[in-house]
């Protein structure tokens, strides 16, 4: 059973169209992905989810590739097929030298390709948050601070993890189909 319905641009309300427009303007894409279309029946919901994604991913001081990597790692840990494919695609798009195998290896033991050293600490931190946020110790924060992250940046890392989890719950519950361009990498 398909658990959701998609609202195409021409059928959408003006509020939803405004959200679609803002998504395309912000990302440079010429169409909107399935996850937004599945929310298109409600301009308010589509807007709320998009604003959360936009505010977390496109603003702040963390570099976008690091945020994409966090979302990918969290989604993979949560077994969220749609989100991990989507963000694997984004990470791979950001770095043409990477293959999906590299990402899988990195997910497994933090190795496989050359990344700045702070990536490994951030990914370890994110994995721990996903497993059990209550298990985070001061030492986990200290480790990130030793990597040069300020307290404000660590808050931003947690916000990205939290946003990814929110999208994981939504996309997995609905068993969203993958956008055509993401299928190829899984």
């Amino acid at each position, binding site marked *: 059973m398909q658990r959701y319905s998609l609202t195409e641009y021409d059928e959408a309300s003006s509020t939803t169209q405004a959200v679609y427009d803002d998504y395309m303007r912000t990302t440079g894409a010429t169409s909107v992905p399935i996850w937004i279309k599945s929310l298109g029946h409600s301009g308010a919901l589509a807007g709320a989810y998009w604003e959360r994604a936009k505010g977390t991913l496109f603003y702040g001081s963390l*570099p976008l590739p690091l945020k994409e990597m966090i979302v990918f790692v969290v989604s993979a840990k949560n077994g969220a097929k749609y989100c991990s494919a989507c963000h694997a695609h984004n990470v791979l798009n950001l770095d043409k030298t990477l293959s999906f195998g590299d990402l899988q290896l990195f997910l497994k033991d933090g190795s496989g390709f050359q990344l700045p050293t702070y990536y490994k600490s951030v990914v370890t931190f994110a994995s721990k948050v996903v497993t059990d946020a209550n298990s985070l110790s001061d030492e986990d924060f200290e480790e990130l*601070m030793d990597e040069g992250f300020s307290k404000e940046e660590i808050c931003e890392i947690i916000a990205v993890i939290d946003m990814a989890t929110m999208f994981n719950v939504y996309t997995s519950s609905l068993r969203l189909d993958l956008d055509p361009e993401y299928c190829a990498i899984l």
Partner: protein
Amino acid sequence: MKPTNKISGSQWTELTAQQLVRYEALFKLLDDIQILEDIAEISRCIATQWKYFANVTRWRMVITKNKSYQIIDGYRGEAHLSDVQSLSPWDDYHWKLNRPRLIRAEEQREGPAPPEHLIGKSITEIKILPFARLGKCIGLLSAAARHEPFSELDNKFIRLFGSHFADRISGIILQQQAIEALISKATHDELTGLLNRGTIIERLNSQLALSRRTGQPLSVILADIDFFKAINDTHGHLAGDVVLHEGALRMQAQVRGGESLGRYGGEEFLVVLYPCDEERVAIVAERFRRAMAETAFTINEVSPSDLKVTISLGTSSTEKQEGIGIQDLLKQVDNALYCSKANGRNNVTPADIPHN
């Protein structure tokens, strides 16, 4: 970051996203530090952003600041600023050496120890870069590499950014010093170094307004050097200048918190005291009088000769005269000073305050 061997083509096309992240972070930071004016704010930005374009999370920048040094330490995503009069052995050694150095962790036992935040098991090496302008060292950067030694690209970014960083902080310090010098020139008397007439009157105005708001009394002292014209006529104008300068120093030494001293006219000095009542202003005026009269002035350094210099003083207070204006207060204190002169000089006279 090391280039991978998976791609082919010219170097130009080998840019990976991580390299682009480096450039983006560097350009953004260069932009930010040009826009920001506050050294603490600039340093905070650098403390979080540097790791995104080079493997630098722990660093120290030393910049000359007149006769002292501005130290900025970056670690754990934060910047810590301090002003020091003399450099630590590490900074002093490298400042004098005045050439780039790379010290690996295992070599750190030789020479002065690095700052505490640049020591640790994850530190692999420390890059030290002096930044010279017109042959003179203006800044010294010590940047520590963690986990891995600095790559070639790291080193290039550290040198490039470090130079901009040193220039920006040095430029802000110079600008601040120039502004302070201009303000000082505009508000101070050149010969005595005291507040000039305009500034001391302005101070009186603002303190008077404060006194009205709080109800606490304000007092003023007007002092005039006795027989100053005779000093000029007998010993020359240079001697007159020495008396003014030395007299100002002596009076300035008597100034306490809540008291402002300025050169009011040729040989006249105005002291504004807030909060201060009639009783206390008389005591303070007497302190000034004694500071001048008790020790003779030396007016010629080549063939020193002692000269006894005294001042006459008048005092007035807003106590029991709530709402009195600045002009009336100055007139009262001027009359009091005139009385001191008429009564033989070298004394203090309180203003004759009209009673309702």
